């Protein structure tokens, strides 16, 4: 029984391991987030305006509930980094020159804080510095209002606002092409002609503040200054990503461990049933000697507990290792001063309680049945198994079956539940592989859809403010530009009933060739002459359908309010978005034929020349290079996924092997005598192996489609969990994943089959003649 108990131990270890992994990651991430936010006095309310005089700050500070206020100048600029041809985006944020910021305190990783009256000094965000090997003393060139300005990095810093350093509208963080620079407020205001003014507000609130009320008051005050609408910490983008991850961990952290512990409970049930069947006479003897039922039950329960404890210990080790691995992965995405691995005592106790409970639930019935047999009855061997013709045969298909096949079919049919659970166990390992790998398939699908079908441009350029198309003539004729498509992004609030969301309307050309809109079937849809096209996620959040009329509150310019019908819905996997005909949008804005983005199709031969030109163009606020986004995404996300998938695969093998091996060993123990008799009668090793392994093959073959179904089901649950405002992961399972799931399970089944086959080759033929079972 050693091998079997060891296999069960391994399954429990996997369950405990995955539990510890997710729970420790959850604890570590939540704790780090909480304490960092507290220590750094992370703001609770954020807003931005086009430009407001500092005197407005007085009114903001008077809003009831506001305890701290920070008024800043924040601007995105183009960076020219040595060694990189393409332009990067730098976000310049003003900080007080004489003291550290009261809110969103900076954590200095190295170097020092800026000194007063040193207009060129800047602190650089850690991610960007790492990617470019920047250290204090190095210089970076920013293009501010068309002028090149050398920034001297004096320190490397972290901010709670940019733990997840992603630019709005980007899919993944790209530390190479997006950097944060904190500069003295005097220097920054001067550079952007913002002396005596600000364009960004951060607030902290008193503990009894009503956040919604503060947001409304702030919006009222900032509205005349081009206020873009205030948002709470909940909607702050970096925080949102981390909080999403935390809630995913909370939900996902139970599925996989649950599967393992379910399988372990089943296996323990099967193995213990067999052990008790073999020890019937011993139980009877002990009871005859006067041992109580409780004493005997405790004896078997002790064995269960030993197995659970071993599994728990191994799982604890594996879980800690994986938890650290996850933390390691998090440090690549989340910039905390320190991200520590944590293993709270309640998690350890919790894992033990859960694994022990599942094991005891799996075995309590068997133990009860064994101890409640009267000694005299237990002393007699178990009555011979009753069989009957199978459904197969009752349907008149007898002649199809050889005698050996009949043995297989009848054995399966005699204990359908056991067969079903064995199959289910194997099926679960198929589903675990699918679960672990579909995310890669889905992301591949998303990358393909997003970057090949939807976004067909090579480069997208955003401007500091809207310009007339003619003003952008120069850009359309830059080297290597094959095709341009202008667009306009307008920040709005969309309202329907009592639902409201802050999004941007993208004004697109009539027949956009570079930004396609697609429906649920990925077929391109035409942009209607008038009316809005919004994505299905936004529609469901607002509760609107085609034909409904929504209220649009424009957050820019004259800030008009419109009533516009929803003309069509598009399926998108990222963010919330709305589209409109560019001309219709401009007509409504009543400020002329303006654009603030241009999508470019570029001849790759002239790429570098184009980048150089773009860096020098003053009107350009940011340049996004599609290829680079994909690359950085693949580099970070996919690589890390592969690591986790390796473990996932190992886990799936443990289940598959554990279930098949146990089933085979139990079958061998139960039927060894029968098979040895057949050998005596002249059946070959191959022929008797067929009977035993054939049964396993049938169970495995049945398990594979079941496992695929389960995999899709679990995948569906996971994708439902991952359906957030930020992104939706579609359930895509590639043929490669399916074939891998099937082959891993098949290999595990064959391997355990071979182990059992070796035992079959050494059956004691003589012993069976003299013993009655």
């Amino acid at each position: 029984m050693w091998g079997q108990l060891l296999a069960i131990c391994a399954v429990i270890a996997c369950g405990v391991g995955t539990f510890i992994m997710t729970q420790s990651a959850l604890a570590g991430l939540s704790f780090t987030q909480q304490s960092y936010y507290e220590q750094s006095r992370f703001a609770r309310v954020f807003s931005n305006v086009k430009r407001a005089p500092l005197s407005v700050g007085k009114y903001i500070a008077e809003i009831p509930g506001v305890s701290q206020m920070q008024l800043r100048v924040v601007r995105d600029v183009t960076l020219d980094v040595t060694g990189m041809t393409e332009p990067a985006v730098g976000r310049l944020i003003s900080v007080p020159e004489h003291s550290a910021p009261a809110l969103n305190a900076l954590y200095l990783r190295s170097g020092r804080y800026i000194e007063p009256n040193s207009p060129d000094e800047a602190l650089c965000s850690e991610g960007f510095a790492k990617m470019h090997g920047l250290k204090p003393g190095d210089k970076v060139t920013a293009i501010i209002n068309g002028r090149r300005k050398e920034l001297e990095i004096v320190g490397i810093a972290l901010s709670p606002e940019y733990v997840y350093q992603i630019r709005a509208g980007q899919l993944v963080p790209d530390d190479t092409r997006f950097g944060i620079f904190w500069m003295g407020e005097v220097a920054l205001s001067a550079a952007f002609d913002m002396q005596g003014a600000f364009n960004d507000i951060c607030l902290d609130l008193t503990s009894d503040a009503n956040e919604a009320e503060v947001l409304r008051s702030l919006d009222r005050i900032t509205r005349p200054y081009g206020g873009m609408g205030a948002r709470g910490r909940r909607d702050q983008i970096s925080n949102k990503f981390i909080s999403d991850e935390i809630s995913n961990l909370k939900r996902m952290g139970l599925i996989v461990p649950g599967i393992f512990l379910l399988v372990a409970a089943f296996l323990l049930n099967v193995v213990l049933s067999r052990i008790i069947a073999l020890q019937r006479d011993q139980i009877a003897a002990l009871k005859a000697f006067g041992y109580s039922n409780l004493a005997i039950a405790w004896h078997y329960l002790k064995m269960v507990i030993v197995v659970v404890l071993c599994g728990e210990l191994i799982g604890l080790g594996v879980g800690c290792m994986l938890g650290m691995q996850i933390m390691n992965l998090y440090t690549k995405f989340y910039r905390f001063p320190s991200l520590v691995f944590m293993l709270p005592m309640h998690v350890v106790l919790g894992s033990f309680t859960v694994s022990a409970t599942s094991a005891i639930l799996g075995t309590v019935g068997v133990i009860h049945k064994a101890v409640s047999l009267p000694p005299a009855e237990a002393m007699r061997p178990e009555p011979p198994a009753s069989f009957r013709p199978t459904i197969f045969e009752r349907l008149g298909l007898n002649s199809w079956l050889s005698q050996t096949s009949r043995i297989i079919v009848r054995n399966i049919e005699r204990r359908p539940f056991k067969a079903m659970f064995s199959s289910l166990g194997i099926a679960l390992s198929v589903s675990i592989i699918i679960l672990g790998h579909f995310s890669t398939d889905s992301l591949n699908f998303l990358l393909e859809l997003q970057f090949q079908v939807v976004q067909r441009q090579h480069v997208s350029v955003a401007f500091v403010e809207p310009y007339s198309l003619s003003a952008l003539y120069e850009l359309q004729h830059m080297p290597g530009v094959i095709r341009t498509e202008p667009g306009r992004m307008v920040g709005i609030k969309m309202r329907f009933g009592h639902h409201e969301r802050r999004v941007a309307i993208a004004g697109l050309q009539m027949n956009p060739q570079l930004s396609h809109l697609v429906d649920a079937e990925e077929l391109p849809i035409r942009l209607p002459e008038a009316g809005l096209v919004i994505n299905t996620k936004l529609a469901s959040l607002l509760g609107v359908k085609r034909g409904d009329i929504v209220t649009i509150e424009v957050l820019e310019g004259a800030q008009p309010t419109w009533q516009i019908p929803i003309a069509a819905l598009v399926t998108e996997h990222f963010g919330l978005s709305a589209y409109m005909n560019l001309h219709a949008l401009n007509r409504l804005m009543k400020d002329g034929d303006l654009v603030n983005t241009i999508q470019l199709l570029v001849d790759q031969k002239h790429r570098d020349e184009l980048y150089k030109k773009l860096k020098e163009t003053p009107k350009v606020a940011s340049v996004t290079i599609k290829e680079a986004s994909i690359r950085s995404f693949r580099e970070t996300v996919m690589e890390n996924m592969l690591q986790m998938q390796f473990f996932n695969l190992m886990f799936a093998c443990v289940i598959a092997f554990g279930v098949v091996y146990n089933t085979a060993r139990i079958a061998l123990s139960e039927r060894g005598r029968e098979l040895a008799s057949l050998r005596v009668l002249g059946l070959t090793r191959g022929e008797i192996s067929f009977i035993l392994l054939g049964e396993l093959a049938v169970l495995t073959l049945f398990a594979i489609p079941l496992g695929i179904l389960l995999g899709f089901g679990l995948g569906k649950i996971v994708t439902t969990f991952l359906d957030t405002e930020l992104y939706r992961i579609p359930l895509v399972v590639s043929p490669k994943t399916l074939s891998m799931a099937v082959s891993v399970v098949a290999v595990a089944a064959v391997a355990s089959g071979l182990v059992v086959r070796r035992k079959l080759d050494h059956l004691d033929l003589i012993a069976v003649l003299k013993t009655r079972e």
Partner: protein
Amino acid sequence: MVPSRVGAKSVYCARGITKIYRMGEVEVHALRGVDLDLFEGEFVVLLGPSGSGKSTLLNILGGLDVPTAGHVSYRGKDLTSNDDALLTGYRRRHVGFVFQFYNLIPSLTAKENVALVTEIAQNPMRPEEALEMVNLGHRLDHFPAQLSGGEQQRVAIARAIAKRPDVLLCDEPTGALDIETGIVVLEVIERVNRELGTTTAVITHNAAIAGMADRVISVASGRISHVKTNQHKQQPRELQW
């Protein structure tokens, strides 16, 4: 001492068979140099108390075990080489086994238990025919759990003879049965020996059964102690124990 039968061909020829088992740290000498011949068509009873070595002898004759020393051949073919495929083939083609505890496959009916063997035999009877022979033609579709001990043993005999084996080796065939049922089973074995001419060896510790044999070979302490040829064979019905 090699008993001979004039005019009959030797089926088994064993010379100097020794079998030593290792049980933990103890060596058990199960057979200590046995010489034995069995002849075509004869009915032999190997008689001896438990532990005498008679089962070991039968196992070696049946190709289930090989001697530690000595030589055994079946119709001139060597049975002492430890070649599993060879021994399996030998059992498959030539030997019918009957066990003390029947060893039927519980998931197969009487007919199917017989068919299991006939499927792999070269010139078998029909399973029904074999079961008729043991007077179980009316219980073809019963599972072992639905049959009495005697009936199960008769199914086992039908299974052993259905492939028309050259030898029928029975290891305590009545050991688990009461007298009345035991006699029915012995009648069937006797009938098979008589009607099919199958060389039959029955091992037993029950001396009463010796009366129905052509020859009675007594085994004690790993040696053949005595060989007796019955001038008058008794019918199973006439046996008493």
